[in-house]
């Protein structure tokens, strides 16, 4: 697949052969002008490639641009309801989800504000909400975090993890290398019009990112539910607590993982949830951790008991 703008333009992308897995978080990296945005627009189906083709795009695809200065004569809710219907939702359902997502991103008080009067950050929240309210199977985020406040960024991280846990493919570009660090299943590095796959475990994962430890207890002899969100690193308790499992996931995935455990049949009991210090990653849990990590350290003893 390749793309250029205009019949005489230079090729922005050339000879790209790429298959995106389902239920995966895909990070796209590359310098300015490497063609990241073009690749995302092609993936989202906003443009058709000049040569080759893209097949198998899910029916529900959503895209969030970096800036959304939509001077449209609609209110935030009005716009979201229209977009929800375009995504195939019924009006009442679209209205309900619009309110829900605006609330999640802390923009509920702007529900009736005309789009033209919204601040840059709130406009971006509307752009993010329109993409998420359809629960898309392919979500394409072109620096969607830009302009969002800290709380909304964290919420978007969680919403992305939720979509991936729900089986969607999420493709994103962000200039911040710590964005969803350690959570990407696949990293694509762009340059010279092409794309290279980079394993997330290699040097392309500069920061492991904040992680969360979840200690769960299942019914006796129950196996862990399959396909847990965020591909958690797991350690099974032995001896005194054989049914205890310690799961470590990238922080954005913690809610999705908890939901999966609590809604499993039969449900799992959550013993505790604790942040993991990046320096004390799971592979080296030390009993003599700092005071704030007491629970984690204690847990290390449990799992290492004979």
């Amino acid at each position, binding site marked *: 697949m390749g793309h250029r703008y205009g019949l005489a333009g230079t090729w922005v992308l050339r000879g790209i052969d790429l298959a995106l897995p389902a239920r995966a978080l895909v990070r796209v990296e590359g310098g300015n002008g490497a063609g990241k945005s073009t690749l995302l627009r092609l993936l989202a189906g906003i443009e058709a490639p000049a040569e080759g083709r893209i097949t198998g795009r899910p029916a529900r695809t*959503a895209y969030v641009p970096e800036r959304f200065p*939509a001077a449209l004569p609609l209110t935030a809710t009005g716009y979201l309801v229209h977009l929800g*219907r*375009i995504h195939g939702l019924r009006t009442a359902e679209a209205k309900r989800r619009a309110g829900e997502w605006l609330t999640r991103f802390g923009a509920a008080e702007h529900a009736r504000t005309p789009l033209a009067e919204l601040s840059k950050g709130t406009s971006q929240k509307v752009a993010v909400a329109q993409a998420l309210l359809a629960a898309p199977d392919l979500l394409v985020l072109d620096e969607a975090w830009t302009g969002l406040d800290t709380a909304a960024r964290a919420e978007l991280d969680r919403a992305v993890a939720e979509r991936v846990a729900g089986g969607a493919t999420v493709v994103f570009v962000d200039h911040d290398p710590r964005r969803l660090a350690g959570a990407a299943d696949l990293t694509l590095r762009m340059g010279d019009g092409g794309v290279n796959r980079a394993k997330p475990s290699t040097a392309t994962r500069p920061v492991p990112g904040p992680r969360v430890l979840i200690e769960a207890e299942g019914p006796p002899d129950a196996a862990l539910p399959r396909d847990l969100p965020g591909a958690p690193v797991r350690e099974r308790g032995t001896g005194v607590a054989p049914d205890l499992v310690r799961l470590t996931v990238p922080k954005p995935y913690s809610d999705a993982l908890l939901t999966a455990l609590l809604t499993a049949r039969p449900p799992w009991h959550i013993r505790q949830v604790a942040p993991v210090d990046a320096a004390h990653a799971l592979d080296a849990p030390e009993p003599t951790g700092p005071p704030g990590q007491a629970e984690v350290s204690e847990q290390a003893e449990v799992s290492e008991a004979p």
Partner: protein
Amino acid sequence: MTALLRYQAALLARSQRWTAPLLLYAAVLAVGVQSGQPVLGSLGFAAAALLPVTAWAVHLCVGQEPPAARAVASAAAGPRRVHLAALLTATGCAAVLAGATTAVVLLVSSPATDNGTHAVSRPAAALAGLLAALCCVLLGAAVGALSTRPVLRRRGWSVAAAVLGSLLALVTAGSPARYAVTALVTGSRTGTFDPPALPSLGAAAVAVAAAFLVCRIAARRG
């Protein structure tokens, strides 16, 4: 598609940009259509004036979304359908205007030929007038679609192409719009006229071909 049409119609209705072409059309009609004039001539005039108005409406609908909003809608529904929805919204609005105008002209005009010697049946005039107006709406939509994004992106070229295209569509020999309007004007002189069915079909074919072409280009260029 219904959702896209509702979205485009809501944008057009609330943007109030439709007021300019509508007022222009009303002004042109006020000058060209007088109460008590021969009905067929007035219908021909009203139909002809609809052609550039429709082209303008298409420009408005195709250009009313900022690029970011268009990209979002295109990802959700596909760029072809988004573009087609804009074209259909403009054409639909123009068709409604055509129906209303035809009704008004029929009410205020005199059902007779130019020299007043022959009577003109109102139902026959209504059918002929509606078909002629439809013909002009469809050709106007084709002219509008071909003279704006994604074919022509610069505003100056776009407006010039629409004006020139509308003029050519009305005066070029063989153009369905010219044929349909001429049929009404000649009928007003002689008293014999047929509903311009064939030109309407021709205009529909031109409009469909133009829509197909520009929607393809819209998908390619985003």
